[in-house]
């Protein structure tokens, strides 16, 4: 078994925390897991990528066309990650854009989100898009958007980790006073994908 999950987004969105939760949940279920992260200069508001591979794996990097899931915290970054996708890849993406400063100073334009999603659907029909930040706000704090995304990932039903184990790991990771909010965020992400399935 090999499960390849590519997580992409922008520095500061909580991607590393989400990746760690996923990896720790896999370890808690006795699975082999390896992941790679981005640190240092590459992190200052730039694109953040993290790969998590579970099962009989050696490489911490996912090859082109080999992602089972692309979990994207930002719609344009989902499109930028398409090299890793194939026609069966499940793509879960937040649709609230983070406009890079290059657009503000007049270097390039941010494409319409609808156009991005349509473009992604030409590669794979399995696209789940929703406003993860709005859901997180509804759950109680925007900071829980990464846990909304984990809930959504869990609902795809392709992880070898049960949603309960995922929730348990979230609960162990976040500070006690944010536990309830994060449980709610997880559920909301889970439902967002489930109702589209």
């Amino acid at each position: 078994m090999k499960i390849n999950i590519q997580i992409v987004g922008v520095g500061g969105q909580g991607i590393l925390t989400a990746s760690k939760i996923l990896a720790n949940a896999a370890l808690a279920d006795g699975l082999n897991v390896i992941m790679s992260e981005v640190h240092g200069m590459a992190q200052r508001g730039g694109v953040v990528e993290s790969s998590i591979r579970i099962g009989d794996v050696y490489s911490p990097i996912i090859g082109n066309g080999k992602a089972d899931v692309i979990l994207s915290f930002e719609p344009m970054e989902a499109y930028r990650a398409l090299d890793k996708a194939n026609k069966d890849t499940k793509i879960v993406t937040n649709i609230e854009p983070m406009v890079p400063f290059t657009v503000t100073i007049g270097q390039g334009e941010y494409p319409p989100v609808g156009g991005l999603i349509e473009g992604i659907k030409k590669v794979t029909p399995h696209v789940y898009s929703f406003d993860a930040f709005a859901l997180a706000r509804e759950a109680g704090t925007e900071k829980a958007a990464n846990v909304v995304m984990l809930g959504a990932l869990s609902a795809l039903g392709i992880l070898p980790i049960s949603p309960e184990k995922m929730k348990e790991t979230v609960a162990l990771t976040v500070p006690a006073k944010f536990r309830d909010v994060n449980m709610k965020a997880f559920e909301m992400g889970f439902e967002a994908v489930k109702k589209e399935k």
Partner: protein
Amino acid sequence: MDKLVHGEKGTKMMLLGNEAIVRGALEAGIGFSAAYPGTPSSEISDTFSRIAKDAGIHFEYSVNEKVAMETVAAVAASGVRAMTQMKHVGLNVASDAFMTSVYTGTRAGLVVVTADDPSMHSSQNEQDNRIYSKLSGVPMLEPSSPHEAKEMARKAFDISEELESPILLRTTTRISHVRGVVEFEDRKSGKLKGHFDKDPFRFVTIPSVARKQHKILLEKEEKARKMADVSEFNRIIGDGKIGFMTSGAAFNYLMEVVEDMGIDYKILKLGFTHPFPSGLFKEFMEGIEKLIVVEEGEPYLEEYAFVYSRETRPEMRIYGKYSDHFPRLYEYNPDVVEKGVSASLGMEYRDRKPEYADMKLPDRPPALCPGCPHRATYYAARKVFMKDKDKVVYPTDIGCYTLGIQPPYELADYLLCMGSSIGSSNGFSEVTDQLPIAFIGDSTFFHSGVPALINAVYNEKRLIYVILDNSTTAMTGHQPNPGMGKNGMGDIAPVISIENVVKGCGVEWVRTVDSYDLPALEEAFKEAAENDGVSVIISKHPCALLESAAKKKAGTFHTYRIDQDKCIHCHVCSKHLACPAIYITEDGLDMIDEKQCTGCGVCADICPAHAISEVKE
């Protein structure tokens, strides 16, 4: 209770390669570590700093890698197991001490970690530090996974003691920053205190001593070669006809590629890579029909393959970088390795990336954070010098502020290495009519800016030296430095005043200004430009990430908002200051993203319409 410190034998933990190295060092009974941070090595030091008290060891941040190397060499010579860790270019800084520490040798285990950065995710060059082992004669270990990094860190101390030589533990970004399952061994308790038994005819490297020690070094290398031949870190996997030799991160990609392609493989997986295990290599060569060398960076193993295949298999064709089947550039991945293996075997390679419309997406390069005090300094410098663009030159340095290269600031013209802003200014000021305006951060100033500043005063240069003092080592993750009042153990430390150091170097013209005080900054730049000599401006304000976090904790944090009724749409805030928290809507309105705003208020100060104010609810 920290599991990394107290976890018992058999404990399994998801660890970064860098964290795993710390655990390995603890299992070996390390007593002391000293380092200067640098990506991708920084989390080794961060982790030591976090656990030092709990684990009962000493950790300190050194002013630079050379001082760290000298410190640990003395510690190990006194009988205490020691480690220093640095990024690949950090070893250039430490190399003077490192190269001769091999001559004196060591008494207790001495491990030098070099973390290379293929693809230059956070670095100014892509040098392959494995060559340092050849240059110095130091034995070297190269892990392929976090677990192996832990095991090698543990065993490295023993190898070092057996050979009485420092040892290199060489990682790359995809080892240091990979998280994997690591299984613990028991921790050995080590010595924290030692005694230096004097032996000047070993430790004082005057020429007559060095001549003797060089001979001993060559003998140690031969002993180490025999150890490499039988090392548990060097092994043969499979018994197929197609031979592969590999090490480090490349091994992981190769394993998946050969299994996916169904190749009849025999892999020589090397972890103890210097001295080259020539005996094991010859054994491996028996029965294989082809040899493919898969390694990132330089053709390091490949060259040994040429040397050692000559006697026994002179007819063997070697596929690698010299045959143009594998690149010397950038880090590898499964696709690069599959392409190289396919080409070596004469098989067709097809990229698996799907076809999709090539939509023109705007770039998202790393940028100075919202509220970054460097941005305010750059804004002021640009305002003063923009009209004389060709009369000034901006040598810059290594840190977050290097991002000043980007528009709209474009205040970076020249960069070599740590400290080169002021070093290179010595040259520009002499042979050009351009006024050098050099930018350097506080930590980099302490690291290597001081000697070059003395040089500038001594040689009577005319230049402006801007020290961007945010009182931390921000880029690598906010490690303490000598200006901060905190040390590697987390204790209060003496504060070294940058202004006093500058004055002590003989600089007469010094101004310290708050980075958010734009009128004062502009005034300082104008005055400095009139000064005929070395002018130093210390632009001081805490890193916005730390300050906003402190304000949130204290309950004094407020974001800013643009009053759309007052806004005149001049875009000074969005396009000239270019704070990432300010964006322009589709209707052309400037807006502040309060999620990103850190509440610095610089945009409010520069707004000509006074349309920006604090959100007070």
